[in-house]
């Protein structure tokens, strides 16, 4: 297929002759006949009115038809982009007051320490649930949680976890969706110090390696996912202790108003919530300026 034989000047001249003959009332091109008979009409028509189509010209015409076809296909297929819908969500974090089911503000001092019950609220989107935890030591006294740097094993980068809030600096909040494959409570939950042992009833057993890893790191409790065994350190920004997860749980930033003892969620740091490209997009926004905290269930049945 030589380019020269494809696009000779005589070809353009020939094309001009064709268009002239087609417009000429005496030799008008019959569209209906062409649609019905295709090449069988076109070729004799050209032979009669313009001169026979030789092999080169025929190839050229075919090439142009294919070219137009390709352009048409590309232009139609461009609409495939219409399949990509813009993600729902919001543009910026809204500061939200944490309230209980009656609508009354949750008091930081009344959040139980080392609570085995799973306590959740949605923020910033309705499909993004978060744990609300008040962490203590083995004897149940609140632990002051300092700001630390958290590493994302997946890419080695780090970010700063701001630490606990409340009078004792012991209240924290994390996304409750496992970063491995998205398991949700009650599959993933907090194991307070009193349940850091083996031999609990299925499914709330702790696999020995998770327990050993927690003891090695000297942690009173852990967040553990029963789906595939990912373990997170709630005392240090939900950093990864055991895989398979490659990402820490995102921290939901809390603000404590010391005058009223009320808690506010103000943002999120770390990786996006599982299943979202950004924590702010991919779901319906929690409406209003408050989010309801609710006791979901107590996974420890024994």
């Amino acid at each position: 297929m030589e380019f020269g034989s494809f696009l000779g000047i005589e070809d353009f001249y020939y094309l001009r002759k064709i268009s002239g003959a087609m417009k000429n009332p005496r030799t008008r091109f019959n569209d209906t006949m062409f649609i019905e008979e295709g090449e069988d009409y076109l070729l004799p028509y050209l032979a009669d009115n313009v001169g026979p189509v030789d092999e080169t010209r025929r190839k050229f015409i075919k090439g142009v038809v294919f070219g137009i076809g390709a352009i048409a296909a590309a232009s139609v297929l461009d609409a495939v982009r219409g399949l990509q819908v813009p993600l729902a969500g919001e543009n910026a974090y809204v500061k939200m007051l944490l309230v209980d089911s009656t609508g009354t503000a949750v008091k930081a001092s009344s959040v139980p320490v080392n609570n085995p019950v799973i306590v959740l609220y949605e923020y910033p989107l309705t499909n993004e649930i978060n744990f609300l935890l008040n962490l203590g030591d083995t004897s149940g006294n609140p632990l002051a949680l300092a700001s630390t740097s958290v590493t994302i094993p997946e890419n080695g980068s780090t970010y700063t976890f701001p630490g606990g809030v409340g009078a004792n600096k012991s209240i924290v909040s994390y996304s409750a969706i496992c970063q491995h494959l998205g398991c949700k409570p009650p599959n993933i939950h907090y194991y307070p110090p009193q349940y850091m042992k083996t031999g609990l009833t299925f499914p709330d057993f702790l696999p020995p390696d998770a327990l050993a890893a927690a003891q090695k790191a000297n942690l009173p409790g852990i967040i553990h996912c029963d789906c595939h065994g990912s373990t997170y350190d709630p005392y240090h920004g939900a950093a990864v202790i055991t895989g398979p997860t490659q990402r820490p749980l995102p921290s939901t930033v809390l603000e404590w108003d010391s005058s009223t003892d009320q808690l506010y969620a103000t943002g999120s740091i770390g990786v996006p919530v599982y299943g979202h490209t950004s924590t702010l997009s991919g779901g319906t926004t929690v409406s209003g300026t408050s989010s309801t905290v609710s006791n979901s269930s107590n996974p420890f049945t024994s």
Partner: protein
Amino acid sequence: MKVMDRISSLTGKIISKFSLKQFVDINEQPLFRMPNYMFRLRYWLGALVAAAFIWEVVTGLFLLLNYYPSDPYNQTQTIISKIPFGAPILYSHLYGAYFMIFLAYIHLFRNYFDGAYKRPRQLLWVVGLLLFALALGTAFTGYSLPADILGADADGVAHGILAGAPAGSTLITILFGNGTSVDMYTKLLGWHVIFAVILGALVGVHFMLFEQYGVMPSKKVKEKVPAVYPKETWEKFNPWFPRNFVYTLELTLFIWGLILLIPNVVINIPNIPNSISPLLSPAPLVSPSQSLPPGTPAFPPWFFLFLYKSIDFLQPNGAPYTPFIASLLSGMLPALYLLVLPWLDRSDETAAHKRTLFAGIGILLVTYLVQLSVWAAVDPGIPEPFSTQVGLMLPPVFVAFVSLYLIPRAIHSKKGERSLTPKNAALLIVVGLVIVGTWSSLLRHLSIYLIGVFIPIAMTLVLFATRFARGVETAPVEEKAPRMMTYNIAIVFMVMLFLIAAGILALMIRYPDTGPESTYWGIGTGIILLIFSYALSLYGYLFYPQENDEVKIVHPGTKKTSGGRGIEVQGASGEAENQADKA
């Protein structure tokens, strides 16, 4: 009597007046005609898949009319408890998909081991694989629609797998929408239907290609590529109507009967253990906001279990794969292999024992599929170090190739004589077990380990089973099988079947058509369909020729007139099989 004659002549006139036959005569269509010996299940596996697909379309349309993407979980519960026949139809829709995928696996591997992908059927094979991929896509989207906890988990896992893929976030929005629940279930429903429609169109292409090449003749008829009947041969076989039609109907009703019967029986079994209920339950489980009953693992459907296990695999250095890479390795690699298979295996042999390498790979594919699936069911979500993977997945390689090497050799050890009796075969199994017994350090995974050992041996035996069967068989195949049943017995039998079916119907209509008791409709109708299928089978047995026409094509393409059916009865070739048959 006179009245009867009048009526029959009148109906005859009316029928011939309005007969479609004057416009379309199905037997004038260029449809492949089947020889007598092919009216056996193994030649109709594709028809079984198609039957299940038709069931899915019909029940799917009913469900489509009753599904609300805005409230998927509750509406599914409404379908089950309030809509007449909703429960049996929904349950059979799930089990119909199970049947379809299971039968597609059987169909695929039968064609694999019979070398049916070879010239001239390469395109048929490729279209078949596309159909399989589409079926899995349809199954996945459908599985999510009830919006129960399993569906939600499956979507979570799909997000994780896609997030690691190139352009993953775009794919996620295309498949799952903008993140709101309504959009997600609208999209999933849409894709479920779109995939099913494309599937249906491709089934048409698949069927037309099948008609073009015809059924692959048995190995006895033609062993070498191209395994096709010459046109002048097959044109003399049974016309499509009525025999092919009756047999197709029989199989279709058989599959429909099972699809309707089994889930509606399963739902009525009390106390299914929690550990397997996600795999068996025909009904959706709890909603995602509730917790599963204790001891219930969050399984994907059984046909994705192998993929689920591969996500637990760790690399040799102990780091996990990303879910995308893991599913690429366990899902895409085998798929690519199968796709290019017709161009890899270019020999003109179709018999499995003459394609040892490809038969071996096929056996391994089946073994790994079962092994990984059972593994995922037994140890869901437990990370597996590289050493465990090797310990469990390497022995099948040895077992497969050792048994593929030994068993045919045992068959051919003495020329002309079959030395592999079932006793020797059992001995071979023991030898095989001893060889691999050295790996027995893996007690924790014993069951999975044993699967990896047994399947290759069993499959090798099955692949060669027809060959021993012929070796053991002493009686020659009768040219005309004697009828075992006289027409009088058959009449009594048919009347009994009719009465049983009528009895079941009478019993069934006493139960309400909504709520849990509507599943009795599913059970009863399932049994009636099975009875109908059996009656057709009896009819075919009584009225259609049973002569064995499984005879070798001597010179394909040349017309033979001496054989009566256009094919020459096999001559005195040195083929051991023929001698065995004559002995």
